[in-house]
């Protein structure tokens, strides 16, 4: 079979991936540099009988996808920094009520209005900690247009499987650049569908905190009548202030992600076998790092890279293991120091260096090479 190859933009690849994943519903609000996701889906989704909505604000867009998801829809929204800040309240609701959804944040410079048309990676911690209260989240950082497509499909699958919001953190560079994409046939990729529970309505509880298994979310309107609330609730879905229920609910929101980390994690190791210096980089920055590594190796400095693709939950185990054999770690990111905090937490015995450039320009291979040389001489 001939391959379906296209030249497309990162934002278009996200839209394409959503359609392949069986997306039923998009709601969003215009914001640079993510608007192409909405524009493309406004054409694609109605043509296949699905729903596209432009809402009155970011909060409404988030609410609308959760409402549709409770009806059984596979849902996605796309935004950028300021919009991501507005969505946090309902992202917390999705965590608390275990409603699957995919949120694309095409990162731009911040805080506030920041740099609408220029890249940054300043929202990594926000993806995890943006909404209040304890919870776990899944976040994914694709580093190419092709990966944006496949990771969007994976994001939908993880959202349904673990009944959780999944954040796709691309950035202005990945979102707007054009690259070759191999578009898969639906039969070539794993797609997890929304299912009815395997128990009859009278035996259905919308939550289960103790069995270790994620209960399927019954689509509303199919005979499974239940209650959804952002209040702490028991397994029946009704609010509770009983201490044991509260603790079980809190534990579950974190355990369901962290106890399944092997299934959720995804990363790439690049030339780490003989490396004396390990670069940790993700998203568009990892592309410059890859180039810098070959330049450094040409100059006789052995550098490798660990690239998280699933960035939340953080790959503690991999960083910890690599730090046992590689004594210098250089974290490169377009922010003032976010993922470096996680690397410092998990790397035992390695010295951790950071290269943090946030000036609206991509971090270049030369920037990284200069830092590699400095680290190498240290």
């Amino acid at each position, binding site marked *: 079979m001939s391959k379906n190859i296209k030249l497309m933009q990162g934002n278009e690849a996200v839209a394409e991936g959503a359609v392949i994943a069986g997306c039923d519903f998009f709601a969003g609000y215009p914001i640079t540099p993510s608007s192409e996701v909405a524009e493309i889906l406004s054409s694609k989704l109605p043509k296949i009988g699905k729903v596209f909505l432009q809402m009155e604000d970011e909060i409404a867009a988030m*609410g*609308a996808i959760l*409402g549709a998801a409770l009806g059984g829809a596979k849902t996605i929204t796309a935004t950028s920094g300021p919009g991501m800040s507005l969505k946090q*309240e*309902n992202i917390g609701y999705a965590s608390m009520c275990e409603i699957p959804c995919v949120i694309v944040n095409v990162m731009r410079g911040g805080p506030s209005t920041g740099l609408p048309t220029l890249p940054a990676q300043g929202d990594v911690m926000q993806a995890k900690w943006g909404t209040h209260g304890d919870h776990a989240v899944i976040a994914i950082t694709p580093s190419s247009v092709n990966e944006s497509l496949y990771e969007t499909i994976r994001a939908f699958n993880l959202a349904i499987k673990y009944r959780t919001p999944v954040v796709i953190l691309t950035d202005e560079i990945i979102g707007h650049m054009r690259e070759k994409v191999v578009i898969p046939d639906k039969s070539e990729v794993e797609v997890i569908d929304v299912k009815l529970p395997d128990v009859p309505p009278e035996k259905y509880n919308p939550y289960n905190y103790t069995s270790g298994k994620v209960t399927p979310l019954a689509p509303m309107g199919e005979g499974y009548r239940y209650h959804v609330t*952002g209040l702490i609730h028991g397994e029946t879905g009704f609010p509770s202030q009983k201490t044991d229920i509260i603790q079980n609910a809190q534990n579950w929101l974190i355990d369901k992600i962290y106890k399944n980390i092997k299934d959720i994690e995804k990363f790439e190791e690049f030339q780490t076998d003989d490396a004396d210096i390990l670069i940790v980089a993700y998203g568009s920055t990892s592309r410059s790092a890859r180039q810098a590594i070959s330049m450094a190796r040409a100059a006789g400095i052995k550098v490798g890279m660990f690239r998280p693709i699933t960035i939340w939950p953080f790959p503690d185990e991999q960083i910890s293991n690599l730090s046992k054999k590689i004594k210098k770690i250089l974290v490169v990111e377009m922010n003032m120091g976010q993922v470096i905090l996680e690397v410092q937490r998990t790397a035992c015995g390695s010295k951790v260096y950071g290269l943090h450039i946030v000036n609206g320009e991509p971090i270049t291979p030369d920037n990284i090479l200069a830092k590699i040389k400095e680290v190498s001489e240290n």
Partner: protein
Amino acid sequence: MIKTKFNYDYYLRKNTLPHIWCPGCGDGIILKALLRAIHKCGYSKDEVVITSGIGCASRLPGYVDFNTIHTTHGRALTFAIGMKMYKPKLKVITISGDGDALAIGGNHFIHAARRNIDMTLIVFNNYTYGMTGGQYSPTQPLDSFATTTPFGSIEPPFDVCNLAQAAGATWVGRSTSYHAVQLEKFMVDALNHTGFSVLDVITNCHISYGRRNKMKSPVEMIKYQKEKAVPARSAENMSPEELAGRFKTGILFEAKDRPEFCGEYHKKLELLKTK
């Protein structure tokens, strides 16, 4: 349409009772009217979705045996729109307080009205944020008192119905928790309307509002509702002075010829299919 004899117990989730509302609160009267209205409309429990925001009124969905979603503050309409657009056959009702619907949720209110999407919003309008202890709301009358207007309110209130109509809602009505029979009748009408229907229900919070405004008992507040309500037809012959401090009740606006959003969207999908 009516298949069985009406019975409150059939619709209540009795294991979630007693409710959190204070003794004498009007919310229970509105809940009962809503159950009777849903029964009269002949909806099955499975086809009804009720969303609500945050506040006393928004606790209603927990007590009734439908598909119920107690959402975030002010956002109930956004969840409702998502549900309705994805599952157009479902009957979607939103329950919201005055603060929930018109302050924090004001943007969603006007845009749901503008779209004229086929669902019903019932505003439990008690002029106050009861759950948080009686702060002033966007419907609180001028010169009245709240925990955050200790010297009297200087903010003009919204008229829920005028706002809904101006924004594009195609069925707009007002009743009170005193007029329980009328309330049920209006609810049936609002539910049967195709388009965005808004029912403003004046209800009493004697605890948080009344007690600071010389109406400390439910009886005084119910009397207030009875005395201040002016049927729309009578209001036509009254001067602005005579209407001051009073509110109009009745079906205040109805338009049947305007396109309904959800239907229009799905019509467009059908057109695209045939292309």
